[in-house]
């Protein structure tokens, strides 16, 4: 039991935080370079080998660790030193409930590939998300700098606004799947549905057999397309990356709340942002993109297909590997997508951010909940 938890945690620390987060800095540099018609990071080298710029994350770390750690005069020393850690911790602990694989049976033992399989997984994620605001706020306040303070104020306002809307935007999803448990949500998405099935409800009893074959994976993005868009917008706003980087806003606030930070403490704020990008990608995958499930191939189908050749045990292990790979692939796609948005859109104006939240997404997501409830009542799913 304890060993399993330790193994799962190690997997997350090594793959999601240790490997993915530094690679993301490279992806971001390369992708922005491609999008802006530049060559991009290619200068860091060891004995002339640049490895496509993959050595840059290493160079970054060495640089950040060797820089002086400055605490400005008049700053609240204790809080100034604590703030970067407070920013990183919620981002890391959010991984505890994200399922990177399903539930597998090995004889009598059940193996579940999630460190903390709790009933209130989604609420836990919201809780960690709401704690993420504190890093920026404390950093902004403790720096004894008016630009930082303004960044912190903007950070709080943005966080409070989008927290509410983010919660409402996924209510539709947990109405559809009837659970807040992320593992159950992923299992529920491991199937398909008939796209034209609704025709039977509105009177067409006889469906052509060809239409019956048109199926889509039972994924959140197909069941709650509006919910997906709203949730993506809100969670990107929570992460404070462009186009929602008002708390940093380098053209107005120099660097906002982390203006007075240097060295690794400055790096920690960046790390928190990049880890959050991975968390967001994992969360979007788990809620809307079917989690670890392979589209059109459910877990039983995969195991049944391999079983005659390799036996049940090995087939399950292979299926597990396939699922984890699928999950990581989907996460990478969602990371790429977030980078695409980040380098495509300019920063919003502050009033636009608040209008988008309170006047557009909030009413529309309430309407989405209402519509979802009506449809569920109509098809008798509730």
């Amino acid at each position, binding site marked *: 039991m304890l060993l399993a938890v330790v193994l799962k945690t190690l997997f997350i620390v090594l793959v999601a935080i240790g490997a993915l987060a530094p690679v993301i800095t490279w992806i971001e540099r390369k992708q922005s370079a491609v999008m802006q018609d530049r060559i991009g990071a290619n200068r860091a080298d060891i004995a002339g080998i640049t490895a496509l710029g993959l050595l840059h994350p290493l160079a970054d770390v060495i640089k950040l660790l060797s820089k002086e750690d400055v605490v400005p005069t008049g700053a*609240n020393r204790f*809080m100034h030193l604590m703030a970067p850690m407070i920013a990183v911790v919620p981002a890391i602990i959010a991984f505890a409930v994200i399922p990177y694989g399903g539930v597998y049976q090995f004889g009598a033992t059940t193996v579940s590939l999630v460190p903390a399989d*709790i*009933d*209130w997984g989604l*609420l*836990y994620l*919201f*809780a960690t*998300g*709401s*704690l993420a*605001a*504190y890093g920026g*706020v*404390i950093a*902004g*306040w*403790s720096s004894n700098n008016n630009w930082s*303070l303004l960044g*912190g*104020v903007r950070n*709080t*306002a943005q*966080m*409070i606004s989008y*927290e*509410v809307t983010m*919660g409402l935007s996924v209510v539709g999803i947990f109405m559809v799947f009837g659970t*807040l448990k992320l593992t159950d949500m992923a299992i529920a998405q491991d199937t398909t549905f008939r796209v034209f099935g609704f025709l039977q409800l509105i009177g067409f009893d006889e469906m052509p057999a060809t239409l019956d074959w048109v199926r889509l994976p039972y994924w959140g993005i197909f069941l709650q397309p509006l919910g997906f868009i709203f949730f993506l917008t809100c969670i990107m706003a929570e992460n404070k990356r462009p186009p929602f980087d008002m708390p940093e806003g380098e053209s107005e606030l120099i660097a906002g709340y982390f203006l007075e930070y240097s060295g690794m403490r400055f790096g920690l704020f960046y790390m928190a942002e990049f880890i959050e990008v991975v968390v967001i990608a994992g969360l979007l995958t788990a809620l809307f993109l079917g989690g670890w499930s392979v589209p059109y191939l459910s877990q039983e189908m995969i195991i049944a297909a391999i079983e005659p050749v390799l036996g049940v045990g090995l087939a399950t292990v292979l299926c597990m590997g396939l699922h984890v790979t699928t999950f990581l692939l989907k996460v990478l796609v969602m990371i790429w997508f977030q980078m695409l948005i980040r380098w495509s859109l300019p920063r919003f104006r502050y009033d636009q951010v608040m209008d988008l939240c309170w006047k557009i997404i909030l009413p529309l997501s309430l309407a989405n909940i209402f519509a979802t409830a009506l449809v569920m009542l109509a098809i008798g799913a509730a």
Partner: protein
Amino acid sequence: MGVEAFLFYALALLSLFSAVAMVGFVRNTMAGALSLVVTMISLAGIYVLLGAHLVAAIQIIVYAGAILVLFLFVIMLLDLRTDDFGSMRPGRRLLKVVGVVVSTALCAVIVQLLPDALPEAGPLPDGFGGFRDVGIRLFTEYVVPVETAGLLLLAAIVGAVILAKRRID
């Protein structure tokens, strides 16, 4: 001592300590507010130990995540610094003494009443503290109080907006 007992005592100590710290940091408002955050989070931990998962999540999302962030927002907006508060006047010092005496007395009363106040401990019902059970209760058994509270809060919001708007106009 089991893990749960250890966690309980650690969280209880932390919440008591930070609650006292919140009162102690009279002049550093930010530190006071952050102590309150620590109190809220450690209380949420205690709720988890009690099996009340929904309450724990809401404790963090609503209190630590929204209300206290709002407090911090106001503190930063007013930019309260330590020297904004003058030295303690003698009258205040008297109030402090009275406060300590009264709260100690209150604490003694609570401790004395506590053993009788607890209901007979039985096994927890199935699904206790889960969002499903709490949700069903809230929307069937307690629907009138919930809706009344909602109405009161709505009235408070409308009132606040009207009062604030009058000052702006």
